């Protein structure tokens, strides 16, 4: 019985320590904010110049000059600050962001990640993804374990253009928590009812049990 999206978000949230400065990617990673354990202070960074980002406001209080990286209205919590883009990315590139959690099209067992283009043409767009994977101290990925077509997203090597090389150190999927180890992935934790063998069958590189 695999984890739901909310369960994955809660698991990823549980692994964020108090006081961490965290950048959450657009989409599924954003949900982590809703599951930070009560009483644990975590400071959310948004690449467009916000530290101390709070939840989405009620519709009547939405302010299009207070938006997140996904361009959606957010709030600022006490202790928050605004700064310009070069300072914001100094935080990222300079190794000051403790954890970033991103979505991905593919990850590789050597820690490579692809999440900026499907390589199929159309308009390419990169945003802050390459800066985040190069700069955050811990780069974590939340993704479905396989594509809609059932193809593994945890691969031996990327098939899509890379966002960064050798940077991912944790992957959360509906089947478990994984760590890229170079040639293989390590299964740190399996979702209830899942076995190493069952997960390995849906993974594109060797999968080993954690010690």
């Amino acid at each position, binding site marked *: 019985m695999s984890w739901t999206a909310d369960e994955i978000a809660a698991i990823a949230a549980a692994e964020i320590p108090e006081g961490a400065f965290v950048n959450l990617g657009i989409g599924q990673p954003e949900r982590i904010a809703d599951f930070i354990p009560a009483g644990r202070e975590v400071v959310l960074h948004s690449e467009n110049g916000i530290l101390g980002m709070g939840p989405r406001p009620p519709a009547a209080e939405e302010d299009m000059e207070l938006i997140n990286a996904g*361009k959606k209205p957010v709030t600022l919590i006490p202790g928050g600050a605004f700064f310009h883009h070069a300072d914001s990315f100094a935080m990222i590139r300079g190794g000051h962001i403790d954890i970033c959690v991103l979505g991905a099209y593919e990850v590789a067992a050597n820690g490579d990640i692809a999440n900026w283009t499907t390589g199929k043409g159309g308009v390419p767009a990169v945003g802050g993804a390459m800066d985040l994977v190069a700069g955050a101290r811990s780069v974590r990925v939340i993704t479905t374990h396989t594509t809609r077509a059932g193809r593994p997203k945890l691969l031996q090597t990327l098939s899509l253009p890379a966002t960064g090389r050798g940077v991912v150190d944790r992957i959360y999927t509906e089947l478990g928590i994984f760590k890229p180890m170079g040639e293989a992935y390590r299964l740190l934790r399996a979702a209830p009812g899942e076995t190493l063998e069952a997960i390995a069958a849906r993974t594109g590189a060797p999968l080993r049990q954690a010690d």
Partner: protein
Amino acid sequence: MIDKIFPDARAAIDGVRDGDTVLIGGFGEAGNPTELIHALIEQGARELTVVNNNSGNGEIGLALLLHERRVARLICSYPRGSHAHVFETLYRDGQIALELVPQGTLAERLRAGGAGIPAFYTPSGVGTALAEGKETRTFAGRDHILEHAICGDVALIKAEAADRWGNLVYRKAARNFGPVMAMAAKTTIAQVRKVVPLGELDPEAIVTPSIFVSRVVPIADPISERDHILALEQAR
């Protein structure tokens, strides 16, 4: 007396030339100098290189400038989006050149341009398609690529308040690229919601000091991109 306040956007935009590099502030819907861009359209300069994080929203501001075919080349990090159809169509039709730059590299190249740093090394983008053709160098065992400064002929930015010297403060996340673009351009033009008397802005809280600003235009009630996009969506 120093007085950088201009009566209207059309007067402030004067002097932009064909082929100029125009830095345009904003991220998503926050901080876009829409009225200045409309004045630039009226002014008529063509074959522009535009630097902006995105590629315009809906059919106003940068999107309208693109639609009017004034932009030969866009330097940006994220030209995709739910309201970026003007750019997407031009791009697919091969009507505009695109230089895609990681967002932090874009911000840092602008700051470098403003700070007299012609080039710097960065780890962002190493090993990716966006590093192709770039000089690579190893520092402390880690690969970096060489990135070059971006300077603008003109910067168009939006701030919250200014004084007659051109000191600027911003509002919330509308600050974004304004400060680094103001540094990086020969002529920086800011539209602001209000002009305040000299000395009223807190000297500890001024974000862009007057030295980086050439012209200021008060636009008390700028166009709401959100309203525009809602209207567009309802019209469909």
